[in-house]
């Protein structure tokens, strides 16, 4: 049998295409179908088509909205914190000084650890009885805080953990943006005796804005899907104050085994992410168009 060039190319491509089809496309279509069904994956019963019932029930449930509120609060705090810290640190790092390479590498380390390992470490460090953080607070004469189990602070324990992990990403993106600014612009501004603020406002910011928007887009999308640290650090508690939407999806899917409903909620989350991403992309295009 003779295989031509085109045939040979398809032969090479076929395994990857098939793999993609089975691993990515098929589950997407299958789970979309299940989101319109009453289905429990542990039962030996076929999915029962219920139309939009799952979506109607989820969107009218105060429990679900509460979890969206928790997620929104968390995303806002974490992404804002990462952006402010990352941007500030990148500006500080964007100059020549001894040991710059080592310090930059050290700053990037948190991003390289597994989130579950980090969550476990934070759990120990934030323990009010034998954690290092409260030990330091008490040495400073400050009251101990039950970081992960006091409803007033639990969300902040997650935010602190996330900011610690992902600020380096913001640093990295900002540094990449800063490296694209042509130095002659600053030199010209120096000749014109422009202040630091004017240089930042009219040279730095316009150049790095697109990459900053991209960084914010990535972090927002990622933070909305945030699961690992909630699972390890707070388990959604105390009560339900740190129960984010992805964590709730996990519970509905694998603890309650309401498979159809969990698929519907996952798709609602996807729509929210797409919506938010569109806003970012709109701004990105606007900034690029200037």
């Amino acid at each position, binding site marked *: 049998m003779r295989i031509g060039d085109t045939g040979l190319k398809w032969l090479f491509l076929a395994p990857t295409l098939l793999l993609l089809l089975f691993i990515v496309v098929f589950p997407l279509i299958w789970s979309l179908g299940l989101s319109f069904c009453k289905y*429990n994956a542990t*039962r*030996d019963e076929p999915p029962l088509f219920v139309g939009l019932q799952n979506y109607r029930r989820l969107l009218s449930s105060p429990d679900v909205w509460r979890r969206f509120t928790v997620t929104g609060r968390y995303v806002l705090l974490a992404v804002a914190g990462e952006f402010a810290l990352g941007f500030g640190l990148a500006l500080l790092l964007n100059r020549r000084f001894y040991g710059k390479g080592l310090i930059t590498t050290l700053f990037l380390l948190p991003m390289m650890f597994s989130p579950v390992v980090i969550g476990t470490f934070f759990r120990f460090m934030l323990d009010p009885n034998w954690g290092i953080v409260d030990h330091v607070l008490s040495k400073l004469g400050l009251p101990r805080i039950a*970081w992960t189990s006091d409803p007033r602070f639990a969300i902040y324990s997650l935010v602190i953990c996330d900011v610690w992990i992902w600020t380096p990403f913001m640093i990295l993106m900002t540094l990449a943006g800063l490296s694209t600014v042509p130095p002659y612009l600053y030199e010209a501004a120096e000749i014109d005796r422009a202040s630091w603020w004017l240089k930042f406002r009219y040279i730095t910011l316009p150049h790095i804005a697109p990459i900053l928007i991209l960084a914010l887009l990535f972090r927002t999308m990622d933070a909305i899907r945030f699961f690992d640290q909630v699972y390890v650090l*707070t*388990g959604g508690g105390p009560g339900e104050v740190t129960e984010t939407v992805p964590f709730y999806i996990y519970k509905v899917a*694998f603890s309650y*085994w309401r498979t159809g409903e969990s698929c519907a909620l996952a798709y609602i989350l996807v729509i929210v992410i797409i919506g938010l991403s569109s806003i970012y992309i709109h701004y990105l295009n606007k900034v690029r168009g200037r």
Partner: protein
Amino acid sequence: MSPDMLPLFFERGGSEMRRALTALIALCILIPFPAAPAEEKVTLTIMWADWEPAHLLLKLAEEFTKETGIEVRGNFVPWPQYHDKMFVEFASRKTSFDICLPDSQWIGEAVEGGHLLELTDWIKEKVDLNNYPEMVIKSYSEYPDGSGRYYGVPGLLDFVLFAYRKDLFEDPKEKEEFKKRYGYELKVPETWEQLRDIAEFFTRPEQNLYGIAMWQAPLATAGLVDEFLGLFWSKGGRLWSGYEDKKVVGYLNDEAGYEAAKLWVELYKFHPPGAANYSVDEVLTAMQQGLVAMAAIYAAFYPALTDPKKSRYADKIGFFMSPAAVDPSGKKHHYVQLGGQGMSISAYTPHKEEALKFLEWWIREETQWKFAEAGQITPDKRVVYDDRFLKLAPINEVVRKSLPLLRDFWEIPEYNEMAEYMSRKLNQACLGQITPKEAMDDIARRHEEILRAAGYYGR
């Protein structure tokens, strides 16, 4: 061949080369796997939580291997992930294990899904059910209760008991001070009200000492509900009207329910800071470090407290049984929350015969004695009611006294959501976000919603 030569190879390569390459790809796809040897040695895999009893079972199983030639290995999962891992495998209708030990309340979920091998005929032939307390059979083997259909043999007996610091309880100064304050002797509590007093007495934040640590985490397994129900039953509480009706409103949230929730919330005040997320590890650590005077644990975890390598107070820890309580009408009740697991066979195992042999070996009196001699807890009455048993572990007197008082909660497939909701609402009550009454009313309402959605009320 260098990478830049590849295009050349594809463009100009001779037909022989192309043919050779095609043959190579076809060979890679079609190459047969080595044939299995005719007489493959069977290895049974047991799935259980990653804890002391599981490792002990594996060690004992070496004797089973010697006897039968069947190898046994473990697939042990940490408690918080145990349920989800097991049921994800069940959902795929193919399990990596042959034998499993589902927690007692999971039996309904597993049986309704068709994941456990029905053992009714085998049990009638091989097992003398009189060797076990009725509650143990109902919780670990039979589903639905009273149906006479069995899906496992009793595995590990477990239940809630309390550990306490003997050095504090036996200190003459503490005894004197306690009597002055509460008007009765300081000793291990017999009622939940006494337990409350003692917890309050030992709560001294300035000394970094607290009265009690109990599971408070809003989880369905290893969470608040596991330890709350001992108090709830003893206060005269009812989860529902009965297995047939399953009405919850007006039953779970009656006066007894409110009283139980109120006392539970009061007890939370005597916990160390940050106890709202306490589960297995946190409670054990609090006791090991001497942070608390008392701790509620499931009995099988006791070695973590008495092992000097793990516990700073190993030689100062004693155990007492879950206390009794008085209901709102003044009647005394005494129940102990059952835990533990039955030993079942996955419906998807290719090694049914070998797995049955293992179960048969496990329920032998001789094996149960060995399990008890190694310090673990058997539900086998032939062992528990033999006086030699009392000397085998520091908790065994409590085991014998607790055995007739055991009670278990829902075993229906919806238990997970019901238990999780109950834990979460009472957790909120402990944190002052809602009152105990609001918590119980809300739990009752939600439980009926869950049961209605599952179709129980129309049946």
